[in-house]
């Protein structure tokens, strides 16, 4: 399923759409094109980008992780509670704790899926509500409010380095790590092979079960990290935190060209998918569209992008029957 030229074209198309969108909104409201607003959009997109990198690893293996938002909220709550109980915990320990808890929750997903040969969608549907309920059990239903959230957690996303908030640096680091893993590391390349054809991957000697569990564990670890950042950024932890966010994460992947059927997707595409959602969400209030539209627009965008994707796929399949010029036109349309 890997294709040489078409992902590149698709990404440039996305870049074009995002730039056009930003310019169009900026023409109506110049405030949209300021550095300040770009930072806002970057900040808003950073957590989504971290989650999308994890989700992408899972999608590549033909799986899906619906529990990311619950994992994020549970880890965020546990870290907030831990920091409240032991104020002496230094930030690096908290970050490691978040990654470890998230990875543990992700490992449970991967293990259930691998060990019992269960469909990922159902397992993560189950853990989605199980983890969500565990937040309530852990916190007794109480909120961890602004003044109770540890200053170190609150400070983490706000600190700046070289003029950029740490939140953006964290996202950038995760994106670079994902890029390295998927482009140059054997383990990452094996994820593509596994998603493209699981049985062939098994015969080719790829340790399929281990890679599956790896993908879910990494996805969980990133969700945990995102949980700590989320709690810090909004300085609150409660049971319904980020409820329903898993759909946004999957939407960003789909818009960015990561196939739900496995084996197809690039880091750059996924990042562009995140930026696309970030720009749209940033633009709505600026051009005075009610926030109620946000979800409807997100849904429409997902549908349009999957339909366009399907069309591109079909043209590729028919190329033998068409003249090259016509095929080129069709694919770029």
């Amino acid at each position, binding site marked *: 399923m890997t294709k040489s030229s078409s992902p590149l074209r698709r990404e440039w198309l996305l870049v074009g759409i995002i730039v056009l969108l930003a310019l169009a909104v900026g023409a109506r409201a110049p405030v949209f094109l300021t550095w300040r607003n770009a930072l806002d959009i970057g900040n808003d997109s950073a957590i989504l980008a971290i989650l999308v990198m994890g989700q992408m690893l899972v999608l590549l293996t033909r799986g899906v992780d619906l529990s990311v938002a619950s994992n994020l909220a549970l880890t965020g709550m546990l870290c907030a509670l831990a920091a409240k109980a032991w104020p002496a915990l230094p930030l690096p320990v908290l970050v490691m704790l978040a990654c470890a808890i998230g990875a543990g929750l992700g490992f449970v997903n991967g293990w259930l899926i691998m060990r019992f040969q*269960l469909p990922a969608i159902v397992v993560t549907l189950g853990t989605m509500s*199980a983890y969500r309920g565990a937040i309530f059990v852990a916190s007794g239903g109480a909120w961890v409010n602004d003044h109770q959230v540890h200053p170190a957690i609150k400070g983490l996303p706000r600190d700046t380095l070289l003029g950029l908030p740490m939140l953006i640096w964290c996202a950038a680091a995760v994106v670079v790590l994902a890029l390295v893993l998927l482009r140059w590391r054997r383990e990452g390349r094996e994820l593509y092979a596994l998603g493209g054809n699981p049985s062939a991957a098994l015969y080719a000697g790829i340790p399929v079960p281990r890679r599956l569990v790896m993908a879910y564990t990494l996805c969980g670890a990133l969700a945990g990290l995102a949980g700590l950042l989320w709690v810090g950024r909004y300085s609150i932890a409660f049971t319904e935190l980020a409820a329903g966010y898993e759909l946004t994460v999957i939407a960003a992947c789909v818009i960015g060209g990561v196939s739900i059927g496995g084996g197809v997707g690039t880091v750059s595409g996924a990042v562009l998918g995140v930026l696309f959602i970030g720009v749209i969400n940033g633009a709505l209030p600026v051009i005075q569209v009610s926030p109620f539209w946000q979800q409807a*627009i997100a849904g429409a965008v997902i549908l349009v992008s999957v339909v366009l994707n399907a*069309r591109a796929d079909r043209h590729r399949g028919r190329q033998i029957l068409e003249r090259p010029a016509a095929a080129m036109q069709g694919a770029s349309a």
Partner: protein
Amino acid sequence: MKALDTWERVLLALIVAVYVGFGAGIDGFLSPYAVADSTYNVSEKALIALAMALLVVAGEIDLSIAATMALASLAMGFAMKAGAPLPVMLAVAAVTGAACGALNGWLVTRWKLPSIVVTIGTLSLYRGLAQVVLGDQAITGYPETLSTWGNGSVGDVIGVPWLIVPIEFVVLLVAALAVGLFLHRTVHGRRLYAIGANPVASRFSGIAVDRYRFGLFVFAGLMAALAAVLLTGRIGSTRPNLAMGWELDAVTIVILGGVAIEGGRGSIVGTVLAAVLLGSFTFALGMLNVSGIVMSMIVGALLIGAMVLPRGVRHLRTRFA
């Protein structure tokens, strides 16, 4: 039809265990009124689970089904505000549900898209549209008849006061019978299994696979409309968050009922039993003052347990055989 296959027997035993166990522990749990009450918990969800079961058997899924309910209820509310009589309101709800289902079906069959992606998209779209139109308002003032359908019992209607079976539950039983006969007793039902097991082979053996898929999505939309009418009548209002998250409950019921998520296997008897099990179980937890979110945690764990258990048993059996 093997109505009581192994898994269905397990479900039946679990239902008995719930009623006996909680009946011994909770005062009044086994009173006829409480039992009748416990069915409210389940009837509307089971209606959409029936449609979901057909879809999953055919290898598809519809995550937008609860959002469709919100839109159907919304359309009904608008019809009422425009002064339409009850039959017109119902027709408007049905048409809205069918239209939502038809859009899903069209996207899946015309563009060859995986239904999970399509319906994640339409879930956002339908739910978002309901929010755009309603904002944070609610529509109230539905006619008395709707409230009777949602809250009344059969006995009230036919004048036999001791017959306290809720109307909603009867609607569910009739729907389950119809869907069950369709799936297990007609050639169309057999074809759904074939499509779920191997769509390509089904296509080559002359089954109009896409037409069946499209029809199933429209049917899911219609069932969502029916469930929406009952739910709106029961709670007496239309809100943008109507039936929020119910798509997951419906999927849970279907999986717990023994329908294989990869398609091609499952029964309506199992689906209904799973719905009753889940409904009575959460009703009992509610009587014990367990909060909703903990309930959903237990349901999530149940869902995983329901899948792991049979495979674990099969595994042990092969190891020791």
